[in-house]
């Protein structure tokens, strides 16, 4: 293949080259932008989980107690048994499970959302450790201490050393934490050691009235999984926890994002491929007209000793260069579009089951959402797909048409008689 001849042809037919490059560029830009948009939304949907370093949360829908007095379980949570937790830990793809006891405490003078956690967990609500603004976080072996959400502490005039009552038991505030820095899922006003929360639950009348609570139960699990098996694990957890299981994943959050995202998520690849096909059809037209105009040139090639394969490779090279140039221009356009997209904010509604406060209280679950910057960006994988598809399309076109023209019978074109 002669690059010199190749570029001379492209240089001397600027409109033809421009049309070919533009058609591929539009196809690539549409394909890549749609995928980047869909990927960005998928990632945004995972944001609430990513904030706490988990891939899934699992809980089981519970029963509304007769009275909202003292410690109760939010009615989206029911006890998860030790054997069920162990089964979940054993599932293929499950890397770690953080157990949590989530509760509401209706004290005479106020409402408290409480969370019992194991501070030795490296993910889940234990990530709150990074949000401590005063004092310290919970430590292994702690009892009778609590970390308060700094906003809640301010509103209720709590400071380090203050004593708060939960279910009749007193807890000393040892730390204040900015919970907004440690995730929105299962946010609480007070964080206490998991063992203390279990004791509270086991002694709470309203909990015992509706559940057969046991000392080693939990009612909310944060689960880390192998990224390739998230959906599979979610399905298996639902089987373990039964028909009242509530398993939240990036996919379930995505379902909350609305119909536009659902459309792009479902049909984005299809629309992108159609854009590619449209671009390929335009390129086909460009190459076909080029090849037809150059019949005489091809006849000369054959007459002066170019083999059919030499002709094909030369014309294929021209098509490939158009496709690659178009692909690069398309990627540049897509990068621009993606950059613009990444300036926008996405609000991910969090399902009411994961709300920290009762939906019947003002500012409760109905307004609960996580707002993140749309994480749209070009991935190497996407770039390689786009370039690969355009090169493959160009190769098909660039071999099929020249294959036909390379078989030209020179005398038919060059004859004078």
């Amino acid at each position, binding site marked *: 293949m002669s690059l010199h*001849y190749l570029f*001379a*042809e492209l*240089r001397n037919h600027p409109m033809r080259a421009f049309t070919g490059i533009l058609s591929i560029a539009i196809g690539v830009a549409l394909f890549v932008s749609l995928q980047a948009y869909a990927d960005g939304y998928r990632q945004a949907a995972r944001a609430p989980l990513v904030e706490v370093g988990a891939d899934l949360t699992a809980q089981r829908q519970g029963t509304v107690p007769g009275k909202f007095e003292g410690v109760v379980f939010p009615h989206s949570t029911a006890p998860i048994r030790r054997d069920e937790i162990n089964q979940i830990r054993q599932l293929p793809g499950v890397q770690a499970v953080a157990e949590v006891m989530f509760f509401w405490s209706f004290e005479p003078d106020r409402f408290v959302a409480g969370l019992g956690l194991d501070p030795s967990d490296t993910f889940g609500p234990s990530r709150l450790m990074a949000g401590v603004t005063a004092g310290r976080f919970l430590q292994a072996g702690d009892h009778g201490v609590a970390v308060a959400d700094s906003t809640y502490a301010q509103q209720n005039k709590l400071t380090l050393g203050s004593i708060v009552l939960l279910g009749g038991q007193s807890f000393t505030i040892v730390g204040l934490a900015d919970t907004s820095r440690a995730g929105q899922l299962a946010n609480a006003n007070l964080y206490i050691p998991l063992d203390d929360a279990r004791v509270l639950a086991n002694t709470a009348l309203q909990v015992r009235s509706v559940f057969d609570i046991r000392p080693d139960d939990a009612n909310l699990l944060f689960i880390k999984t192998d990224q390739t098996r998230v959906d599979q694990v979610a399905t298996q957890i639902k089987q373990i926890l039964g028909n009242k299981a509530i398993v939240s994943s990036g996919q379930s959050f995505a379902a909350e994002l609305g119909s536009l995202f659902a459309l792009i998520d479902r049909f984005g690849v299809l629309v992108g491929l159609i854009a590619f096909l449209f671009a390929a059809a335009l390129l086909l037209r460009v190459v076909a007209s080029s090849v037809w105009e150059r019949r005489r040139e091809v006849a000369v090639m054959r*007459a*002066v000793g*170019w083999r059919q394969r030499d002709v094909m490779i030369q014309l294929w090279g021209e098509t490939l260069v158009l496709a690659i140039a178009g692909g690069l221009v398309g990627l540049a356009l897509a990068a621009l579009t993606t950059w613009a997209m990444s300036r926008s904010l996405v609000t991910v509604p969090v399902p009411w089951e994961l709300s920290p406060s009762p939906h019947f209280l003002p500012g409760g679950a109905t307004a609960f959402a996580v707002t993140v910057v749309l994480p749209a960006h070009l991935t190497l994988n996407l770039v390689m797909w786009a370039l690969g598809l355009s090169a493959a399309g160009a190769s098909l076109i660039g071999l099929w048409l020249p294959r036909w023209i390379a078989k030209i019978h020179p*005398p038919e074109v060059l004859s*004078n008689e």
Partner: protein
Amino acid sequence: MSDLLQAKNLHKSFGVLQAVREASLRIAPGEIVAIMGRSGSGKTTLLHMLAGLERPTAGKILYLGEDVGRLNEDSLALWRRANIGLVFQAFHLIPTLSAKENVAFPLYPMRMSIVERSVRAGAHLDQVGLSDRAQHRPSRLSGGEQQRVAIARALVNNPPLIFADEPTGNLDSDTGDEILELFKKLRNETGAAFLIITHDDKVAAAADRVLIMIDGILQNEAGQDNE
């Protein structure tokens, strides 16, 4: 002297039309052979067959004793590239390439460095007296200059045999004379043989041998069937 090319009883039909009938000829190295005849007499078809561009319906073409008809299309192209130079009445230069690049055109598919290709093309352009027009595109060259470029292109692989189809047909008389002189000069310098299809008596007069084509039948000047 042994024959460079020998055609034996070549026949070419297009449907019911018999374009060439029982044509036989020999071309010796360094010989200039002219074939004359009226339009439609089958001259160009014969040339195309001899150059391997058209397959004969019957008959054989031997090049240095080898049967060219047994080669497939790609092998024929390689054989042409190595042994045959072609000059057309309409020049058939590539409009997007410079004169020098046009001369180098047959070398493009060959494994050859850009420098070597450029040197060879430049040398042959010089041989036809156009080294000062090397960077000009065909549209900026006169008809005579374009034909010189086409001749240099035909010579670039140093083939022993040049086929020229009406090489002066699109040129004025003086320019045609120049091209004719160039053929003679090149024959003397390179030892290549020339087979020239022509209507031009002056071209025929310059040839070592003249053959006449009448209704597809090749005859010598005496009006006898050739061979």
